[in-house]
């Protein structure tokens, strides 16, 4: 009796939850569906949900008419480049603060977070002009540097929370066991720190991939990453829903899949370990 009612309850929750989840996911689903329609079918009233003539011509056309691959490469270089360079600076900093904390450590961490609260518009003009003067406007180099700097506080924070969880006992045990510095780093610390470093990298790649202030302001369409590429579709060109959908699907697919794989780390990472 109780069992049956519990089952019925679970079924009800399942139906409601799936309904809500599909509603939230619907814009993405609709975009993907539309990308396989003809332009006429894309704007048909009433809308066609599943029963339409599936076509891949939009993808072919986006591929042929635009330089998708070029923008995709830009996105990869910029997000990966800025994240890797960020790691190079953030790892030692987080390491020092996690393993040799001083009275100032908390202050330094909070200060770093506060730089992230500095609105980008406050420095838009000088950064734009500096890049212009240095001939870096509309280059990937400029974006790699700027995104690296703007995400650096988050990287340091994330790494710090991961490193802090490495038990000091283990470092002491390794010292008692006679591990040299090289060994301590390579065989004890690296294996324990790597998962945290990997999550940090992953999350920052996602953040940088979707970053849409600097990528839109420091590039023209030609060297822009996918964010700028998609923004160039904002000017209406008549019947273009299907092609817009195809381009959008191409732009978000890699990172959405990456996001699915990293959703657990996302919580820890973006809340700086405050929520577990």
């Amino acid at each position, binding site marked *: 009796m109780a069992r049956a009612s519990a089952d019925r309850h679970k079924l009800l929750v399942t139906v409601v939850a799936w309904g809500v989840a599909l509603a939230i996911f619907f814009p993405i689903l609709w975009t993907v569906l539309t990308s396989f329609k003809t332009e006429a079918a894309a704007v048909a009233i009433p809308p066609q949900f599943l029963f339409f003539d599936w076509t891949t011509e939009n993808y072919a056309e986006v591929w042929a008419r635009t330089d998708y691959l070029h923008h995709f490469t830009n996105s990869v270089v910029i997000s990966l480049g800025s994240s890797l360079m960020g790691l190079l600076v953030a790892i030692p900093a987080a390491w020092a603060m996690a393993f040799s904390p001083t009275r100032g450590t908390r202050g330094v961490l909070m200060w770093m977070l506060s730089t992230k609260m500095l609105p980008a518009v406050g420095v838009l003009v000088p950064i734009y002009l500096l890049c212009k003067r240095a001939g870096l406007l509309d280059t990937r180099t400029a974006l790699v540097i700027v995104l690296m700097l703007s995400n650096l506080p988050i990287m340091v924070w994330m790494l710090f929370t991961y490193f802090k969880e490495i038990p000091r006992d283990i470092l002491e045990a390794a010292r008692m066991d006679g591990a040299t510095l090289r060994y301590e780093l390579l065989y004890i610390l690296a294996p324990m720190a790597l998962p945290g470093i990997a999550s940090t990298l992953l999350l920052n790649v996602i953040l940088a991939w979707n970053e849409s202030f600097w990528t839109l302001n420091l590039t023209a369409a030609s060297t822009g990453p996918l964010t700028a590429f998609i923004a160039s579709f904002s000017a209406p060109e008549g019947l273009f829903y299907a092609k817009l959908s195809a381009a*959008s699907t191409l732009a978000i697919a890699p990172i959405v899949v990456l996001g699915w794989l990293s959703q657990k780390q996302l919580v820890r990472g973006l809340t700086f370990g405050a929520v577990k």
Partner: protein
Amino acid sequence: MASTHNGATARLMLSPAVVLLLVWMAVPLAMTLWYSLHDYQLLMPRGNEFVGLENYVYFLTDPAFFQSLANTLALVMGVLTITVAGGIGLALLLDRPMYGQGIVRVLVVSPFFVMPTVSALVWKNMFMNPVNGLFAWLAQVFGMRAIDWLAEVPLLSLTIIVAWGWLPFATLILLTALQSLDAEQQEAAKMDGANSFARFVHITLPHLARPIAVVILIQTIFLLSVFAEILVTTNGGPGNQSTNLAYLVYSQALLRFDVGSASAGGVVAVVLANILAIFLMRLVGKNLES
């Protein structure tokens, strides 16, 4: 080996990050300040003269400024309200046993990974368009007038678009927090005769206070600088109805080429953000520490 643990090495390891961030913060900010005191037009480089606070007077007395300030706050507050309330509801729902929980989670979290330009364009064209959008079709089905969302209620439309992107974040964090809630506490409250509403108010909500504070802090950081969504949908219009501070400064600088008053706007934005930041960090600073 002891050297990895001593203060000098630690400072050496810390310094690149600190120096980079200091430079990243101080140099452009100093330049912004300097420009803000000069009449600097990008297209007329010769007119570069000291004008004192004239740019500030110009920027602050511009009616667009007050409108953009109000819009910025309305956007932040609106998105926060939707995402926190919706996030709590969704988290409570997803925390219950169900079939296919993993897939449901994946579906719900997905919007967070969609780049702002894509989500804004998809919403603008395929949902909010008064002729071809799904909303227009729905209105027609129910016999109502189709709304031109971005023209008639631009700020509300933007709030919906941005909130859609951030709802997964709030949900995911609150769900994670819920899952760490001690089941025995709930059972103890049940034994004490608390009904499900009382349990939510007295057990669940206090447990969520800290994650909610974290959600507010993190989202505010990002919401203050919403930009791409405005750029590809309304361009701040109609009029200035959907211009926020970030977009206003952008349009002064890169559309009107008035570096001086854009810089003044930048300084104002920094000051306002700092006021908010101090308030927020006070609120959650202790929570974030450990």
